[in-house]
């Protein structure tokens, strides 16, 4: 039998497998997600970096499901372009995942003898197949299930230690001791079956001892970032793929003395958030494209009335209902330009699961200190991917709102200051009463239809964002070559990995991953582009939204081109690497 090769990733140190990708598939109720989560957590507990994404059929419940897990000795921020193992509890409708689970030619397909062969589309890859009596082995164990027998087999191929598997099972099923025991016995049966098999996908040993890492989704990370930053009021309406962020926040807010209100719609969500902010309690809502579209008018109100707030947009495929369960970076245009009038506001984009924490935290501080709404562009991939991350640093102090604590006779809420930021009086402050208004107003907040007041207040609102010192967080700039690859958000992961794999061939390439998209830090960007001969803008949408935004905003290298594709399937390092190689040599 041949040895199963993990993906060496084309790195110069080929020979040491860099990562192994496993897809666990089956019909609804087969326990695919449970098995995937156990595998992910066991790998993480064993000291590996691991990342899991999931896919499922259109059915509300009971449809086919796939848990895709990538395990590596070094941080992984995206899925690989090929899978080494496809493990099926059964094969019902699993052919639908063919595009998402490209099997390596030397890969392995594991299935149940009772369910026959895997769909032809997988067998065509050249991967070899092995059939096991999964269901039969499970039946011999009281409470045993085929998914866990399969998992035991896969874990043995990977060489994952039993202790890590036991801890992962206890962590996930701990509330049901009988299920824990049955699962462990079932996994043991799978392991015995694997003992007869000589194929092994051996990974490089873990790079670090466990203990210094966290396991979380981007949605959880964004929620935690909000709480670290002091958000204590959230109002939101359920929407895929932002719902898990809200479901994490609901009890979490309660535990830190905050509140989550389920609003009747997104129009209500954003206005409740504005109300809380007016009262001085830092506030946030989370949504996806359709909800963000509904919030636009009130985001303009927050700009005009200078109310701090944060909207986390977990982007999905649009327009309209689009593909709710798939990722796309297609909301950049509406986030930047969706407000009517001249309405300066903040737009930020985290570029990894762990960055969802830091960037949401940063966004809250910016919104509060600049008294402006901030949109955080996460996406379905970042939000729903569960990943091992290095332990985040201790929370930095959050920038806070400038308050008028001793307002008096002459209090002017919208007084023009050099920074553009005016101290805000909160209800309850004697002498500070003013009316916050979406109508244009003068310095006191009194409605005004005078052109001079309009120009003055527009200028103030623009200036406060332009003059702010955003520090070094505005982008991740890596390398100093004359060829610049520009990207943002979840596309950063595969671009970064592609560059690493190219090794010396990428030495002339500089990566800029923009975290602050509005206001665009023009001077810093110009400086970061110094010496750039040409530039490639990579993003996941059909029209090249970032490319056009940058083209319209500042002077770019003469040979600036766009590489984009619509959502539905994430970029992988392989396809980006090919593109980069061709581009860098052109």
């Amino acid at each position, binding site marked *: 039998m041949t040895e199963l090769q993990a993906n060496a990733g084309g790195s110069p140190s080929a020979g040491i497998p860099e990562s192994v990708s496993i897809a666990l598939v089956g019909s609804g109720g087969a326990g695919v997600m449970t098995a995937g989560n156990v595998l992910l*957590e066991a790998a*993480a*507990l064993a000291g590996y970096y691991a990342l899991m994404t999931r896919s499922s059929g259109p059915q509300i419940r009971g449809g086919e499901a796939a848990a895709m897990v990538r395990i590596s000795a070094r941080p992984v921020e995206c899925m690989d372009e090929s899978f080494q193992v496809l493990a099926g509890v059964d094969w019902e409708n699993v052919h639908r995942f063919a595009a998402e689970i490209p099997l390596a030619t030397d890969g392995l397909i594991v299935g149940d003898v009772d369910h026959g062969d895997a769909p032809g589309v997988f067998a065509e890859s050249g991967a070899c197949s092995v059939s096991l009596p999964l269901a039969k082995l499970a039946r011999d164990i009281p409470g045993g299930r085929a998914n866990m027998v399969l998992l035991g087999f896969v874990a043995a191929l990977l060489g994952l230690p039993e202790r890590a598997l036991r801890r992962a099972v206890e962590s996930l099923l701990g509330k049901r001791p009988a299920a824990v025991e049955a699962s462990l016995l079932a996994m043991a049966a799978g392991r015995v079956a694997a003992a007869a098999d000589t194929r092994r996908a051996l990974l490089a040993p873990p790079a670090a001892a*466990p*203990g210094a*890492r*966290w*396991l*979380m989704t981007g949605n959880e990370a964004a929620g*935690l970032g909000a*709480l670290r930053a002091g958000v*204590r*009021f959230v*109002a939101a309406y359920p929407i895929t793929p932002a719902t898990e962020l809200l479901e994490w926040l609901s009890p*979490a807010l*309660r*535990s*830190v*003395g*905050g*509140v989550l*209100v389920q609003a*009747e*719609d997104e*129009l*209500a*969500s954003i*206005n*409740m*958030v*504005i*109300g*809380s*902010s*007016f*009262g*001085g*309690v830092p*506030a946030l809502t989370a949504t996806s494209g359709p909800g963000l579209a509904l919030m636009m*008018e*009130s985001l303009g*109100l927050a700009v005009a009335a200078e109310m701090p707030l944060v909207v986390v947009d977990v982007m999905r495929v649009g327009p309209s209902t689009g593909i709710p369960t798939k990722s796309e970076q297609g909301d950049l245009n509406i986030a930047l330009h969706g407000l009517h009038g001249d309405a300066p506001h903040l737009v930020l984009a985290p570029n990894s699961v762990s960055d969802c924490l830091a960037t949401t935290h940063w966004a809250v501080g910016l919104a509060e200190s600049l008294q402006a709404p901030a949109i955080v562009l996460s996406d379905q991939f970042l939000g729903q991917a569960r990943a*091992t991350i290095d*332990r985040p640093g201790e929370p930095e102090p959050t920038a806070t709102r400038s308050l008028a604590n001793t307002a008096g006779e002459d209090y002017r809420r919208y007084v023009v200051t050099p920074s553009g930021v005016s101290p805000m*009086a909160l*209800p*309850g*402050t*004697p002498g*500070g*009463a*003013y*009316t*916050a*208004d*979406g*109508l244009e107003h003068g310095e006191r*907040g*009194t*409605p005004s239809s005078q052109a001079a007041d309009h120009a003055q207040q527009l200028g103030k609102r623009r200036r406060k964002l332009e003059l702010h010192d955003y520090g070094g967080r505005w982008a991740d700039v890596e390398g100093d070559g004359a060829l610049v690859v520009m990207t943002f958000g979840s596309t950063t992961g595969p671009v970064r990995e592609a560059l690493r794999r190219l090794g010396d061939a990428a030495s002339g390439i500089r990566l800029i991953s923009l975290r602050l998209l509005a206001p665009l830090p023009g001077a810093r960007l110009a400086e970061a582009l110094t010496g750039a001969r040409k530039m490639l803008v990579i993003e996941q949408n059909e029209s090249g939204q970032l490319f056009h935004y940058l083209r319209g905003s500042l002077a770019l290298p003469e040979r600036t081109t766009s590489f984009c594709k619509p959502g539905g399937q994430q970029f992988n390092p392989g396809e980006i690497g090919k593109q980069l190689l061709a581009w860098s040599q052109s």
Partner: protein
Amino acid sequence: MSEKGATVIPVPNDFKSDIKPVWCPGCGDFGVLNAMAKAMARLALRPENVAVVSGIGCSSRIPAYTSCYGFHGVHGRALPTATGLKIARPELTVIVTGGDGDGYSIGGNHFLHACRRNVDLTYIVMDNRVYGMTKGQPSPTTETGWTSKLAPHGTGLNEFHPMAIALAAGANFIARGFTGDPNGLADIVMQAITTPGFSFIEVLSPCITFRPEQKEWKKMVRPGNLSSTADPTLAARQIFADDGMNLGVLYAGERPPYQPPIGLATGSLADLEAAFVL
């Protein structure tokens, strides 16, 4: 403020700002401003502890005419804004004001859910059965045959029935007042503010510019003709037999307001973070 010995007794004018209203002379909304000021003074509230929240329309201009904190937001969304404020700052008195178009048409969904949610708010709707700010179009409460440039043959639609809807949706206090009955209206506003939960006041507030016939309302209203009950069945019978001109409190229930605890931590951030540590 007028001073009597060492105690400062607030007077209605303490609750008014020096900004001149944009309303037409004779507009009913002046009466609502007066009644609100009177009620707040009688309750000895402090202007800085009151927030008046509104949407868009003639009547929604009220916040800036008070000396309280005000929020004049977007069309139809006053109730959610006020809900967020009250839940975040439960110690404040929050009054929501607006018109029939703002509250029943563009903001209709929020009206239903504000009644149902029962946050401790006072919602005063100045109903003149017309859009005044946009110069005379029919609103949800406009009579079916009323003709206008936008609906030259009338709306052909049944009128919205705000009090019946408020009752069905779960509002805890429901009343009708009239701007021509300033003392009666001030009494109702006082009761609404002091009754916990969501209080809804329908105020007949004539638009003498686009609906001059509403000047006759003062001859048609019947003050004190609604009898207050805590029984929703009795209230329902009363409201379906009503012609819209009976004034008073229809319903005062005892449903506890929705106020999730805020500021009371039951755990810590460190506990939350520990759950992610491998």
